[in-house]
């Protein structure tokens, strides 16, 4: 039996879960959330928005305020200790045990469960293959690269055949280039395992790449929940729109004159630049050539700044005057 087929997929249901710290401050407003069986849900938000607290509540490392319940499938785990919840957790910074080597780290959860050493060895080998670290079984933790540590942490979490998998900023500790690659790898691995998974991240691109659905959080509240495309195209609030990519705002007389509305909200790629003439007049302040496209920083005549993206052949230079039109794909 392969590991992928032995993992079950359970839904996670949070009902009326809130978190108040002992000093009375609210980390999390009462919240209902269902993570569907087998899906990957990304919790996205700025630091301090409560996303890590929410994850720690699912692990059991934080208790919910009275009245909240957490269920895995039909099993109410609200009062179950973290040791007994059967959750696989990848911690931010990975929290690998420095006094154990790679294989010992991965096998630790099995050892705790009293799994005999033969089975344990087989399972650890299987895990090492899964994350492609067969050659490093005996390595000490401080001899591993960041990417290797991330994979060991993942293998350690999966080895216990958890009921749900929880990842706290799994790629934040890595440098940008490696992060890109591991996002693709991690996405493929999660699909292969088919396990229910919650990922906490502050990086919108990561959330959109890894999450089947994304929950955007702000100030202890769930702002919006939906698949990446829906969130981007139909953001429920300015906060969501702004957090998923850049959002520009313009207002005032010329806007009213050309578009018939008091204010405009749009994304940089929705702006079309033309030679001066019809449309809102603006001038180029700065030009950044970025290979696949050119990014322009512009101002309206009255000084309001905004950003526009154009193809790599866009000819305008700082100081040029242009007129803009909008090619909007979503409702502002």
């Amino acid at each position, binding site marked *: 039996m392969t590991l992928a087929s032995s993992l079950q997929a359970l839904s996670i249901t949070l009902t009326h879960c809130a978190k108040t710290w002992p000093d009375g401050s609210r980390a999390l407003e009462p919240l209902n959330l269902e993570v569907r069986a087998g899906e990957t849900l990304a919790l996205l938000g700025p630091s301090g928005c409560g996303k890590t607290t929410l994850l720690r509540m699912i*692990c*059991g*490392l934080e208790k919910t305020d009275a009245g909240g319940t957490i269920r895995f499938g039909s099993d109410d785990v609200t009062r179950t200790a*973290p*040791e*007994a*919840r*059967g*959750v*696989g*957790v990848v*911690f*931010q*910074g990975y*929290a*690998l*045990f*420095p*006094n154990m080597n790679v294989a010992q780290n991965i096998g*630790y*959860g099995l050892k*705790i*469960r009293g799994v005999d050493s033969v089975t344990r060895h087989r399972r650890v080998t299987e895990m090492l293959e899964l994350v492609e670290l067969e050659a490093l079984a005996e390595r000490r933790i401080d001899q591993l690269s960041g990417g290797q540590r991330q994979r060991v942490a993942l293998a*350690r*979490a999966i080895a*216990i055949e958890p009921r749900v998998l929880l990842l706290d900023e799994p790629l934040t500790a890595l440098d940008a280039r490696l992060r890109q690659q591991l996002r693709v790898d991690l996405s493929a691995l999660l699909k292969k395992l088919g396990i229910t998974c919650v990922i906490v991240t502050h990086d919108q691109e990561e959330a959109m790449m890894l999450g089947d659905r994304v929950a955007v959080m702000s100030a202890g509240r769930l702002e919006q929940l939906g698949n990446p495309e829906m969130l981007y195209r139909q953001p429920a609030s300015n906060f969501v729109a702004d957090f998923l990519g850049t959002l520009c705002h313009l207002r005032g007389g010329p806007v009213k004159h050309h578009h018939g509305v008091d204010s405009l909200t749009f994304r940089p790629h929705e702006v079309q630049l033309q030679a001066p003439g019809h449309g809102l007049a603006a001038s180029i302040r700065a030009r950044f050539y970025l290979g696949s496209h050119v990014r322009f920083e512009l101002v309206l005549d009255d000084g309001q700044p905004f950003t526009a993206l154009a193809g790599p052949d866009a000819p305008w230079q700082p100081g040029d005057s242009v007129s803009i039109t909008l090619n909007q794909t979503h409702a502002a």
Partner: protein
Amino acid sequence: MGRRAWLIIAIPAVTLFIAFWLLPMAKLAGLGAATPQGMDVSAYWLVLTQPRYWQSLANTVGLSLAATLATLAIALPVSRFLARHPAFPGRRVLMSLLIFPLAFPGVVVGFLVILATGRQGVLNTLAKAISGEPMVLAYGMAGLFIGYLYFLLPRTIGVLMAAVEGIDKHWLEAAQTLGASPWRRFVDIELPALTSALTAAGAMCFATAMGAFGTVFTLGTKIDVLPITIYDEFTNYANIPVAAALSVVLGLATWAALYIANTLASRSAQRR
């Protein structure tokens, strides 16, 4: 290198150290090689071969080891409690009370032990009231052991507290989500992370206990430990070569223990 010129200002400290410690110590070590009156071998040979000195050395080592182990065993739960509860009412007061005895010299510690467990001590009064039997610990090895605990505990609690605070909380949480019980987390994760701090604190305790003089001096000069033997040889028998040889042996032992402690402490600090 403009920096070199700064070296000149360290000269007073270095001179004082050489004139009043290094050279005198060298002289003391040399004296230990002399032959005591009425003997035909050097004092070093004497202190290493005569059972009288051996016994004294064995007593000191045994008592210091026992006090060290007891101190670590008691200080560890205290340090863990204080490190894991950074904010409870009265914590500052409690910490101050635990730290205050750091400043007590050995003589005072000895006196406090007498007040608690001596002939007129509370322990004796209580024992007499309860069982009718007197209970006096102060003037022997038991009293000395209590005295050692008294001055070692405040020194150790602070060191271990810092080490417990240095443990990455995520390690413990990771172990917990993997199913480890509190006891397993303590044994598998916490103790290994504390090993070097415990060893360092232990070596420090051992060295401090080995060299303790004031405490024994107050409790009674009949307790046979090395510092008292040295003092006796020097003042009562004027046997300077033997006193010198014993001092050098004792000094080397405590220095070695402390050297190990410092090396381990800096190593564990680097790993963090």
